[in-house]
């Protein structure tokens, strides 16, 4: 394979620096959390996360170096592999917190549903680039993209991991709406959503219903399901403008905050660094997202635009849903905060995604031979 010199010239250093800074803030934050989490066996979380980050960086470079057209061409293959992994969770998976989400190999735990988010974007890209319809998608032409997102969505919902399933659906609709859907289909989606929502209520597990009711009124059961959100709001609010200081967050250090290393990392950060720290972090995320949109816009072809767009909204929704939940404006769903939440799968998948963003960015001036 011939390596073009222009690839190095056009390497997206800004993207790399942004991601590295955010990830390092995440590491620092995990250090604050995990120095009190003594009960977890083995290495401290922040060390583990650091290793995951290194793996992620390697994946990022790998994803950046292989031409994204090549990746898109094998989009369905990659998609099928990750679908297989998702199904194998039921065969090998281990239940944590009452649901099966994890795969174990070589002593590492891995969450195929995280990978699914990325591969679904690639598969969608492949379909859309090969079946572009200028006047917008209608219901028939949407059948295959619906299946691409719908099948893993269902499997993940059965695990059950409603949050991730919902996230995948949001991702799907974001991409489809971006590409364009005709008005009739849009209305149909909207009405079927309104009709189906109450039906879904009956299929929800008790704890999921609790979460929705709690979102509507967190003080409903302050020591039960409302506990998470109340403690999170207390943590964030008690940080004030300047924060309590690194390692000094009482909410987190005293373990009032549940799941603080995964879904609630941001509460810890906001408690210790205050409004100032939180808003700076938010600006960095915004910068990353806008940069991603710029990459998508500047891409020379549809595939690049769609991949870049998909990965950018992936990050956007992750930040928006997670922070929204922590601030008590969205219901509690198990969506990790990109680059900050502890979790190997999420970290590696996101880094790989950023690698693809770089990929598109580097090749923005290159025409296909």
């Amino acid at each position: 394979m011939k390596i073009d010199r222009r690839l190095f010239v056009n390497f997206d250093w800004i993207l790399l620096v942004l991601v590295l800074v955010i990830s390092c803030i995440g590491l620092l934050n995990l250090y604050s959390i995990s120095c009190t989490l003594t009960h977890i066996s083995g290495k401290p979380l922040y060390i583990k996360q650091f290793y995951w980050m290194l793996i992620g960086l390697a994946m990022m470079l790998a994803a950046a170096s292989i031409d994204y057209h090549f990746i898109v061409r094998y989009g369905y293959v990659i998609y099928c592999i990750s679908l297989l992994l998702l199904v194998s969770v039921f065969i090998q998976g281990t239940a944590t917190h009452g649901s099966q989400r994890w795969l174990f190999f070589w002593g590492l735990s891995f969450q195929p549903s995280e990978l699914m988010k990325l591969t679904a974007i690639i598969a969608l890209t492949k379909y859309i680039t090969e079946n572009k319809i200028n006047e917008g998608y209608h219901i028939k032409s949407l059948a295959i993209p619906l299946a691409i997102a719908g099948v893993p969505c269902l499997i993940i919902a059965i695990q059950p991991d409603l949050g991730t399933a919902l996230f995948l659906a949001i991702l799907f609709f974001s991409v489809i709406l971006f590409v364009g859907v005709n008005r009739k289909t849009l209305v149909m989606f909207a009405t079927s959503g309104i009709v189906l929502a109450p039906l879904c209520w009956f299929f929800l597990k008790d704890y999921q219903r609790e979460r929705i009711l709690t979102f509507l009124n967190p003080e409903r059961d302050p020591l039960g399901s409302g506990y998470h959100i109340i403690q999170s709001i207390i943590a964030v609010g008690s940080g004030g403008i300047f924060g309590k200081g690194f390692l000094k967050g009482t909410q987190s250090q005293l373990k009032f905050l549940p799941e603080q290393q995964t879904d609630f990392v941001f509460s810890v950060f906001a408690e210790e660094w205050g409004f100032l720290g939180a808003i700076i972090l938010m600006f960095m995320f915004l910068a990353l997202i806008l940069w991603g949109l710029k990459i998508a816009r500047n891409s020379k072809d549809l595939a690049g635009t769609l991949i870049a767009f998909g990965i950018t909204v992936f990050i956007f929704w992750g930040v928006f849903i997670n922070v929204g939940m922590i601030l008590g404006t969205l219901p509690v769903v198990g969506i990790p905060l990109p680059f900050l939440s502890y979790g190997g799968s999420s970290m590696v998948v996101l880094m790989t995604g950023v690698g693809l963003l770089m990929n598109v960015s580097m090749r923005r001036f290159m025409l296909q031979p």
Partner: protein
Amino acid sequence: MEKKSKLITYDPGEFRRRFNVLIWLMICAFAFLGTKMWYLQAIQGEKLSQRSMNNRIRLQEIKPLRGLILDTNGRILVDNQPSFDISIVPETAKDVKGVIKRLEHLYIERDMKLTNTVTFEKKRKPFVPIKLERNIGRDKVAVVETNTLDLPGVIVDIVPVRKYIYGEIMAHVLGYVGEISTLELERDPNGDRKRGDVVGKLGIEKSINRYLMGKSGGEQIEVNVSGRKLDVLGKVESVPGYNIMLTIDADLQKICWDAFQEKAGSVIVMDPRDGSILAMVNKPSFDPNLFNRGISDGEWSKLLSNPLCPMQNKATSGQYPPGSTFKLIVAAAALEEGLITPDTLIYCDGTFTKGDRTFRCWKKHGHGGVDLYRAIVESCDVYFYNLGAQIGVDTLAEYAKRFGFGSKTGIDIPGEKEGLMPTKKWKLNRFKEPWQVGETISLSIGQGFVMLTPLQLIRAYCALANGGVLYRPRLLKKVTTEKGQIVRMFHPEKLSLLPISKKNLEILTHALWGAVNEDHGTGGALRRNESDVSGKTGTAQVIEMAQDEEDENTKNVPYKYRDHALFVCFAPHDNPEVAVVVIVEHGGHGGSAAAPIARKIIDGYFDLKGTRNILHVAEKRR
């Protein structure tokens, strides 16, 4: 090739507008999050920061020690003593059920068993101990302590419990304690009682619970989310309850208990000079130590179903017809109303007829001509039938009420009864029937509707003895702090004066002296060398029966129909300092059943006084 050309000819321009919208959407989304952050952290920050402080600091109660109860000489009657509880800490035990099984097995090997069935709450925290057994014996403590390795997580707690040193001897006076009930919590006036508090349930423990309880202390502790204690930030020690000194004399109480060997009844010893109760004994009794850590259902129902009512404080809530002891009140009324003089003679031939009914004297063949003195000394019924008929029920009731009958005495322990002093109006209200003259005749010898508590009776006689002052019976002497500083003194309370002139009082008390010390006196059992006791016997009929039979066949009458025996007396005659009332339920005659008990108590009282004086003098010399 066609697909590829499609990719090459892609024109990003068509997306430009969408990207512009998207960028603004994203900025708006982040602005929204930022605004919410500003709201929480800048505007609500102060408030939420306060909440986060409360979140980690909890207040843990430190229970105070209950105050001691002392007798009049400072001897401890109720103490606190350690008791042993065993609990299990699930966190340490890991396999809770298995460990309990092992413990049970260890017990069985030693012929013991786990008394409680352990119930597990669903939502328990692993470091909060679960109580397995309360108040266990030393044998069980030994089993647990010697097998700690096999019983991980099993711990022995030391908890203070009440120790009633005199056990059942003072049960009714002191009462007992128990965990506060829901009803008591609801009725708590200040709302400062909490679930789990130990409060007095009867007697002194109940009536001055507020002094005995003490004040809970607290520990400010830093906790984490699971409530586990991380650090103690501050501590306020608990304040032990105040000590209470009673007027009861423990030695005398013991003497009374020993003297009263009958099945059921009551003894009260009172100081006529100020209404102090020196001793109050009821039989049968119960052991208040049983209630310390919760009485078992079996023991409780046994106490309640006993027909002799061991839980009842008969001295204050037992209501008995006063029998002949009531004659003094009739005599006082007759003297004060001017119906008789001490010299008025009435002829007793053994019967008295009113209307179509004939009433008999206890002495079959009559006493012959009797004056007031002889009538009291020999307890002539006919004499008092005559007086009663002349006075009438309502006037009699008027006098009786001035003696404190028919109303509570106001003693310092709860559960007191009022007794009953009938009037014409009362009967009409109660039975919708008019008063019968014959009922006045019965009333004049203390039979019929009239009912007194032993406490009312002795207080009335104390008033006769002390020159006419009706005191509030007093059990409490003072409240002191742990270190002996006086918190509150309880002084004698004069409630009222008897409506009887000094002269008439002297006539009456002289006759009471005669009843003990004259040859034909009914209270001969109390005749001491010092000839210092004055008193009156009483025999209260439980049911009316032909009086002929009564004399000869007492032994054949079923227990529950036998007469109550009463005796009430005071001594020394000239300057009375001690009064005793004895009631033996279904004991028969006052002179033969109750008086000998009173005799032992009076003897005991003066012996005690003598020895104490000698000791006092000896101590002074040293």
